[in-house]
């Protein structure tokens, strides 16, 4: 995960600034800082089954404010990438179960499918 994200996870000193500024924490089962914490503790399983990486919208607020220069958005992407490469899509946007809003811009479909379906 460190290799894929290019981030030194030991640099995170769990100050929680990422969590404090994240727009989506209300929907998350693991807080952003807890995602890093789990990896620090070797509990990658927890992270791989968490909803949190899928809820991260790559808004880069945490990256902008992290005092230690840790790019959490890249860590979230590393987790998604590992899952997607195992064939575990979060939402199959082109599948029959999913109905894209008819009034949506192409941009929504492209970005959403790249992040959530690989």
């Amino acid at each position, binding site marked *: 995960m460190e*290799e*894929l*994200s*290019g981030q030194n996870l030991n640099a995170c000193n769990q100050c929680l600034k990422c969590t404090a500024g994240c*727009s*989506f924490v*209300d*929907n998350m089962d693991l807080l952003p800082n807890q995602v890093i914490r789990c990896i620090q503790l070797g509990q990658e399983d927890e992270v791989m089954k968490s909803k949190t990486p*899928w*809820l991260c*919208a*790559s*808004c*880069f*607020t945490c*990256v*902008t404010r992290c005092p230690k220069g840790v*790019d959490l*958005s*890249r860590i*979230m*992407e*590393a987790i998604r*990438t590992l899952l997607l490469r195992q064939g575990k899509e979060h*939402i199959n*946007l082109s599948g029959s179960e*999913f109905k*894209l*809003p008819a*009034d*949506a*811009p*192409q*941009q*929504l479909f*492209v*970005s*959403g499918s*790249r*992040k*959530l379906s690989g």
Partner: protein
Amino acid sequence: MAENNSDKNIVYYPGCTLHTWAKSLSDTFIESFKKLDINLHELSDWSCCQAVFPLARDNIMGLVPAARILIQAREHGDILTTLCSFCFNVLRRTNNAIQTDGEIRAKLNAYLEEDYTGDVHVLHPLEILKVMVGFDKLKSKVTKPCGNIKIGPYYGCQLIRPPKEMKFDDPEDPKLLDMFLESIGCEVVNFPFKVECCGSYQIVQGEDMVADRAYAILSNARKNGAEAIALSCPLCFYNLDTRQNLITQKYTDFSPMPVFYFTELMGMALGIDEGLCGFDKHKVDPGILLESLQKSSDTQEHVTVKNDQNKLGVN
């Protein structure tokens, strides 16, 4: 630099959404730049930029489409511009990665037909207006100033972050869109949520999440005095305007707020054909605001928009 820009080609990359869904964003931009005597060369036969910058270190393939666009642009000029914040983020970050990261540059060039070292400048139209045109000159070209319409400039995420790579503006209190709006005669309302995320593509996972974000942003803008929002990204427009009905359904205290692309306001101010603005495509009808604007601004009538829900057809 403000002079002689008529012989300098600026290459325009429209991307997937601009000719169809966000047609007015593109049309008003092209027409406005004509009025400002800036030559745009629109790329033909372009491919998708992939919309999101690949964040996994080994995803070199993910950078190839953007790099190809940059190479294609190089044939026509040394400045590439694009309107959609997602495209802008992808193109600028890709260019930056090629310029600053030797490992990425080497790996990427192995996939490319031509070598590319990052020599194209990726500029946002707002940057072009500031640096190449100058806001003073823009102001002098305004024929129909926007009156005293109180606009909240909304930046969102992809335009400004991550700041180390985007180098667009102050990431916590950006001012470029503010300065632009001032120069076309708007009354700018600074609001703290101008850099908060609108929810992006997450509407596919749950409408509530996006409704909450949009509600927070628009309410915060209104609380600080804004009557409308100006922005630059089609997806932000979708979440804040097209799906504003989600907010009205969930939050009974919310009354609609018109949303504009910044280029629509620029077009109006420069006196282009109003039909290009595509206001009929806006879900929150900006009509009343615009009418009161164009009458005289001596009455504060348009402030009552928020109490006048019947006329603002939110569907």
